[in-house]
């Protein structure tokens, strides 16, 4: 095909092409701008391979289909253009997008315009950006500027903005100058103060307002504890309903609210912390007695503050950073409730951040004992982890099975090889196996073999045999859903085992199970294919 048409076309291009196949002529006319190529001799070369391509690509005999096939590149381009046009038409937001883009880019465009406007005039860019770039050109100016600087130090800032060389001294100025130092110190003082001063009024305020407005919020819960005079106000929350005779001058509504709030508090896991409360007043007295003596009536808030303080102490004392985040949840809960209280009581929300901190600290304080427990638990866990970590190497060295039989560990090279094969199949980008991973894999394979041995033992002993047979393993694999309707042992073996092992799998003649034989028959076909 390829050679003959070229020869024919070479001799008489115009006559041959129509006579040979109409499709070809159509091809030429439709697909390519025909005139030029027919004049030039190249079309011979082009037509021939195209015919070939057409015949090869799609074996359709019909000429019309060939027509469709022939102009593929051009048709593709045309279709692409059509699609583009369509998409351009149907995408509604082109104009909108552009306008939006304009709106979005306004800032950038402003900056760009600014830069364009400034670019010709200003040379200061080099100076402001970096010393290295500026070093070349403005080095000549420096001495003069420095002389100016020495003369008039007051102009520093303005000069530096305009002229290149001394941005860094400006940066370092705040450290040198006393004024800037003062500016820096003030915020520190303001930060130090609120920890003690700001929180104290907040402690005092809510209970007062609670006494005025009974039981509007959580703070009112504390207010309900006034008659009890217990420093551990929150503990008495349930006791309000039982013992709270002095509270009865309050309305039933207030009681209902109290219950609701009680639920809230219960949600916030106060119940869990309740057993810990009796301990806290002592700690609080140790830590901050004056606060407690100030207003025994406002015990709950005090307790809170005390708890805060103790909490800080605990935190300072080095509560493990791991333990602290565990209480964030409680802290958040408590924080929410405190927010309620603050909003209800009209405490200005300005110190919300402090509130939150305080709340978190509160909870941590409430759970000082818990923290201790948890630290103990974590320590225990760490110990257990250590023991776990220490155990495997021991196992690897000398391992004795359940039945008191020593057994060797799998060679790590073998595990690695198997795992690497699996990795290649799994297709992770980096097919390397680190030492840690290898250790984990070895551990897993150890466990696997242990499990497998147990299972095989169970199967064999169930069949009242003293030896593990292949059928046991096959049963196990069927139970593992490795062998099923979709895959047989042999198909799996073909996939995963080297050929010698396949041979071995096929070798053993005594296979009493029927399934087995049918499988083997099936598999031998596959093997034959594979072998050849």
């Amino acid at each position, binding site marked *: 095909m390829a050679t003959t048409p070229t020869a024919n076309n070479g001799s008489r291009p115009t006559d041959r092409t129509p006579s040979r196949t109409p499709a070809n002529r159509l091809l030429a006319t439709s697909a390519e701008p025909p005139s030029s190529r027919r004049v030039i001799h190249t079309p011979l070369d082009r037509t021939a391979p195209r015919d070939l391509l057409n015949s090869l690509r799609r074996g359709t005999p019909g000429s019309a289909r060939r027509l469709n096939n022939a102009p593929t590149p051009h048709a593709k381009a045309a279709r692409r253009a059509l699609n583009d046009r369509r998409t351009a038409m149907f995408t509604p937001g082109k104009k909108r997008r552009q306008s939006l883009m304009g709106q979005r880019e306004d800032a950038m465009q402003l900056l760009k315009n600014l830069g364009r406007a400034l670019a010709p005039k200003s040379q200061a860019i080099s100076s402001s950006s970096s010393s290295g770039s500026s070093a070349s050109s403005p080095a000549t100016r420096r001495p003069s500027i420095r002389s100016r600087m020495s003369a008039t130090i007051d102009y520093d800032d303005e000069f530096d903005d305009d002229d290149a060389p001394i941005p860094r001294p400006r940066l370092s100025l705040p450290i040198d100058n006393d004024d800037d130092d003062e500016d820096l110190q003030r915020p520190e003082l303001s930060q130090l103060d609120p920890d003690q001063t700001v929180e104290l009024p907040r402690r005092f305020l809510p209970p007062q307002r609670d006494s005025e407005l009974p039981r509007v919020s959580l703070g009112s819960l504390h207010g309900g504890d006034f008659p009890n005079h217990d420093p551990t106000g929150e503990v008495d929350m349930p006791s309000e309903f039982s013992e709270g005779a002095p509270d009865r001058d309050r309305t039933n509504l207030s009681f209902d609210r109290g219950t609701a709030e009680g639920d809230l508090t219960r949600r916030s896991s106060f119940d869990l912390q309740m057993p810990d409360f009796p301990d806290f007043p002592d700690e609080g007295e140790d830590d901050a007695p004056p606060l407690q003596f100030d207003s025994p009536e406002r015990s709950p808030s005090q307790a809170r503050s005390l708890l805060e303080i103790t909490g800080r102490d605990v935190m300072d004392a080095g509560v493990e950073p791991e333990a602290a985040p565990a209480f964030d949840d409680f802290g958040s809960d408590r924080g929410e409730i405190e927010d309620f209280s603050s909003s209800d009581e009209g405490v200005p929300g300005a110190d919300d951040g402090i509130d939150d901190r305080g709340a978190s600290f509160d909870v941590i304080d409430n759970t000082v004992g818990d923290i201790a427990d948890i630290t103990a638990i974590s320590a225990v866990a760490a110990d257990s982890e250590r023991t776990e970590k220490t155990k495997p190497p021991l196992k690897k060295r000398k391992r004795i099975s359940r*039945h008191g039989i020593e057994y060797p560990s799998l060679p790590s090279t073998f595990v690695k090889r198997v795992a690497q094969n699996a990795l290649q199949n799994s297709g992770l980008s980096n097919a390397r196996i680190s030492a840690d991973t290898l250790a*984990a894999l070895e551990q897993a394979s150890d466990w696997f073999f242990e499990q497998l041995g147990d299972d095989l033992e169970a199967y064999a002993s169930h069949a009242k045999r003293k030896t593990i047979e292949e059928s046991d393993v096959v049963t196990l694999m069927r139970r593992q859903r490795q062998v099923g309707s979709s895959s047989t042992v042999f198909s799996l073996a073909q996939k995963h085992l080297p050929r010698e092992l396949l041979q071995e799998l096929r070798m053993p003649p005594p296979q009493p199970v029927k399934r087995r034989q049918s499988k083997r028959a099936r598999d031998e076909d596959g093997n034959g294919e594979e072998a050849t």
Partner: protein
Amino acid sequence: MALVGKKPYPKATVKKIIKAHSNLNIKKNADVTVYLDYVLFMESLVREAAIHSKQSGERALAARSVKKVTRDTLSKFKG
């Protein structure tokens, strides 16, 4: 596929291990199937671990993900 001059797997070791764990003898060629099962286990383990480590954003197979996945895969291969 076949590893020339290399034994495909430590047959004696596998046999010993199974024998120790099951306290039973093993028929002659059963360990080949055991090895096949082990390969399958390893494959699924590595697959799961690869997925896990990919999800946690690691390039290579991470030991942590292997440890995480081990339990599930073992339970999957419980007979």
